[in-house]
């Protein structure tokens, strides 16, 4: 059977990276301590569930009712706190917060075929009128528990998956993206590709 000419152009871009820190925030206490945290993220308020607030190398994602992810792409210069043994949680005066940055890997997808690629693994309606710029959702992707975030400018999608599944997802994405001209191994960057550009 004659083979038709291969796709000449690559219409997808994939990159795997780990954000420097993801702070899981729950039940925030309103007041100056929280305001201080928000100020460090240049955000006036916490976004509603399913929405995000993004600034240079930092994002706040409303991942559910009363739950947020505070994501920092650049290393904060100190090792994240790893627990609060013998320290009352109330000392976290702005709410319950815990670093889960080591638990999640992130795949950044961009290019004109990004939506087509995502539709292979996600059941979400990703039409921009439904899943608008800045939208985020905890949902399964390729049978994995993931969080999908559409950037505020719509230029890319960030797909977060559990670190232990990241290699599996990388292989899955690479294979699914081959249709869109993707051939190279997925880049594994330390810092996000466009953190500086932002």
């Amino acid at each position, binding site marked *: *059977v*004659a*083979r*038709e*000419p*291969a*796709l000449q152009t690559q219409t997808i871009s994939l990159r795997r990276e*780990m954000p420097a820190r993801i702070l*899981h925030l*729950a*039940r925030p206490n309103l007041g100056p301590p929280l305001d201080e945290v928000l100020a460090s993220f240049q955000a006036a308020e916490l976004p509603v569930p399913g929405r995000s607030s993004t600034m240079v190398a930092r994002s706040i994602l409303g991942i559910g009712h009363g739950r947020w992810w505070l994501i920092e792409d650049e290393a904060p210069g100190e*090792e*994240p*706190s*790893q*627990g*609060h*043994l*013998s*320290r*009352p*949680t*109330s000392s976290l005066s702005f709410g*319950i917060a*815990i*670093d*889960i*940055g*080591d*638990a*999640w890997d992130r795949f950044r997808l961009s290019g004109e075929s990004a939506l087509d690629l995502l*539709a*292979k693994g*996600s*059941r*979400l*309606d990703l*039409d921009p009128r*439904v899943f608008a710029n800045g939208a985020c959702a905890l949902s399964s992707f*390729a*049978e*994995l528990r993931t969080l999908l975030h559409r950037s505020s400018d719509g230029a890319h999608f960030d797909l977060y998956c*559990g*670190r*232990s*599944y990241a*290699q*599996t*997802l990388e*292989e*899955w994405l690479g*294979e*699914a*993206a*081959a*249709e*869109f*001209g*993707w051939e190279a191994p997925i880049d594994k960057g330390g810092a996000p590709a466009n953190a500086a550009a932002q």
Partner: protein
Amino acid sequence: MSAQISVAQAAQPFRNPTGGIIDRSRPIRFTFDGKGLGGYAGDSLASALLANGVRIVGRSFKYHRPRGIFGAGTEEPNALVQLGSGARTLPNSKATEIELYEGLSATSQNCWPSPAFDLGAAASFFAPLLPAGFYYKTFKWPPAFWEKLYEPLIRRAAGLGRAPTEPDPDRYEHRSGHCDVLVVGAGAAGLSAAAAAAEEGARVILIDEGASPGGLLLARRGKVGDETVSDWLARMVARLDAFSDLRRLVRTTAIGYYDHNQLALLEKVADHRAPQPGEPRQRLWHVWARRVVLATGAHERSLIFDNNDRPGVMLASAARLYANRYAVRPGSTAVLFTNNDSAYEAARDLAAAGSRVAAVIDCRESVPAALPTDIERLGIEPIAGWSVASVMGKHSVRAVEIRPNESKGRSTLRREIACDLLCVSGGWSPALHLHAQTGARAVFDPSIGAFVPGAPRQGERLVGAAAGNFDLKQTLAEAEAAGREAAREAKHGAAQRTVPASRSSQAGSSTNGALRSPHLQGRGKRFIDLQEDVTDKDVALAVREGYRSVEHVKRYTTLGMGTDQGKTGNTLGFVEVARALGHDPATGGTTTFRPPYVPVTLGALAGMHGGRHFLPIRRTPMHDWHVRAGAEMVQSGSWLRPQAYRRRGERLEDAAWREASAVRRSVGIVDVSTLGKLELFGSGAAEFLQRIYTNGFTSLPVGRVRYGLMLREDGMVFDDGTVSRLGEHHYFITTTTAQAALVRQRLEHCRQVLWPDLDVELVAVADQWAAIAVAGPASREVLERAVDIDVKDSALPFMACALGRISGVSVRLFRISFSGDLAYEIYVPARRGAEVWQHLLDIGAPQEITPYGLDALNALRIEKGHVTHAEINGRTTAEDLGLGRMLKQKGDFIGKRSLHRQGLTRKDRWQLVGLASADGRTPIPSGAKLIARTGEAMPVPILGEVTSTTMSPTLERPIALALLADGRSRIGETVIASSPLFGLEVPVSVTSPVFFDPEGKRLRG
């Protein structure tokens, strides 16, 4: 090129020199049964076979009768072929659905050595012995023959085609889609509905099973309004393609219609060509639509008369399609037999295509006057009030015998009309399969002799022939209105109307409802379901034998159970059942319509979930180190874990023995990152834990760890693990690897649904932490050098926890033990896990710290009598496992209420015990049943079973854990571990389950 074309034309004696919607500039070569043939791009395999004069394409399923091409699409019951070869071969492919491509290779099925001369046809001699359900009544005696003779023979005879034996080399994938309006079918109705919906601003998906839109229009020569069919189609496609929010999917069939307006679509991406790199061969879509418009058309029915299956008997609509779309004459001389108007159009088109049309036999006594007049002008004899009694000819139609209806077989008045093509039209059955899959009823409409859609159950509407409307003008108007309404409802949420569209005057479809010739002479077989070889006699037999429901008749006769699902024959069957029972077809109804609408490859159903993507694989942070160290990696649940680190020339069991012995002797290190991990916060956390676990947690001080046990609601043990109090309102929970996800789900359910009043926040952190256990008498020595805090027993006693730093990395340190030895678990942020692991190895080198895998881990915990999910198997209680002391008396917890059920307090419940090989040498077979003694008569009373087994590194003899009836009172007895699977019976002594350090001195040391 011209030479090629002339060759192709010359080899296609039934192809007209002009006409059709085929690309004559692209000749295609293919083979059928090894014979080289020619066709054109745009042909189906069926049309190309007909063009080449191939009339017999296979043999029937049961009687091996010669069969030809009967239909032209998904309804085809006969022309099933084996497509391709090797790993890519696909059995039961309908020739009518296969797009012709260069190099296509197909073979006929169910015949040997050829479809024209098939030795299997001998089966027809035994036909009287093979009525419906014969296998229920015969082959019973002698019993010994059933397994060795009857079953193998029946299995060999059953089925069509051959499944490939090699792995499928093609890719498949799934994809989701969302839209406001999904239009199924791109015929006249579907195109109009889609265009109207798109004009309303809706997101539209329009699908069609064909390579090009048009549906039944492609079989017509007439006009749509003032335009030719091709001009109208071209204009509509251009109109549709102008909408950026409209997606057209070709070669795509809706195979299932499920709740919430979700439909499954099968897209044949590259069945007709080689896939491009990375492209799947087929794609299974899951589409969620706010509204659905079903423009799925209708299937023409057959008619019942003697030998109505002979090659050359064909649906009138199919013959018309072959003539108009493919410029193929399906026969030289045609006769049409009909009970409705539509066959007259087919007669005109066949005549125009160059076939001689001898007559149109219309079984109706009264026919609209214009119809016979019209065809008489073309030299076609109209014969009303007569019916075909029989087809003459065995391998092809030679002539038809017709008789006047009123004679009812008694008259000698008969005629024979010579022909090689008999086109039949028993009226039209709306393709309401998808509609019915939603649970909507089908309603019998006597005016068209068919079941039509009843009230919809979901946001769907049917248009055109699918709704029972056969008038084109009215269909176009109704479809456009339906498209607009669907779009408005989707966008504005208006209520879905709950009544089906009204049906038109049925122009072109009026029928007297007669589906069987009145002249059934019993000389030939009269088939209702061609693919399953079900005859009218089979249906009558089923009814005589007491089957009343069409569902039961279906299963007894196999009516409609073939790959075509009875698209041309089911209605005939339902009407025959009703006739035999003497009631109206409406009373009996239809059988249940179930997905899939057409056969689906297993590859499409699996999508990418095959091969290395069959199951998502998890890797720990130290995975790469394990691989580099030469570990034998094994899949444990979804995790890849080291089974053992085998040295050169070392057997796996020897490696595990060496590793476990090293732990007992000095110190070992093991990756336990796979444990489930949860962080629990809030002032209600302690109370939450009280309710979750069987034992108490309110008294647990900060900095201490407690072992916890969870029950299911029915009182059986659900999971175990540790809870560490890290702060006043902060706990760290670990679960078993196996139940991690389920425990998380349960705790979230409890938090969100059962006890939302409790101030509790739960965060799953399984992947946040790499977990490393350092175990053995020298473990403290290693830790003292590795960590920056005091780990002496006085500072960090057994079941205590603390924060520390190892190699500059903050870690959580827990003094807990699964091995039963002095041990520590160290939790490290995942990205630093490998670094800390290596540091511990380096710093433990003087103590010869030894990495150990799952097998050694298992051996150590069996020695200590620690249970895993081999023992927590869903049927054991805390008392069974010797953990009854963990059931608190005060306060409630999940499962507590069930503990006093009679069945859970019986004395003879299976209890956890240890087993030791009586001779000290013979391994105890895993999974063996425990019996009292050897040589007992069947059925042997089962006393229990072996759950975990190992060679003890401490005792240096085979030991096991087991569940044994009233086991704790049997300690000291000898029983038999019997494994019929391996033919082993091993005498074993019943012991305490704790073989190692029963006083706990080592782990507290």
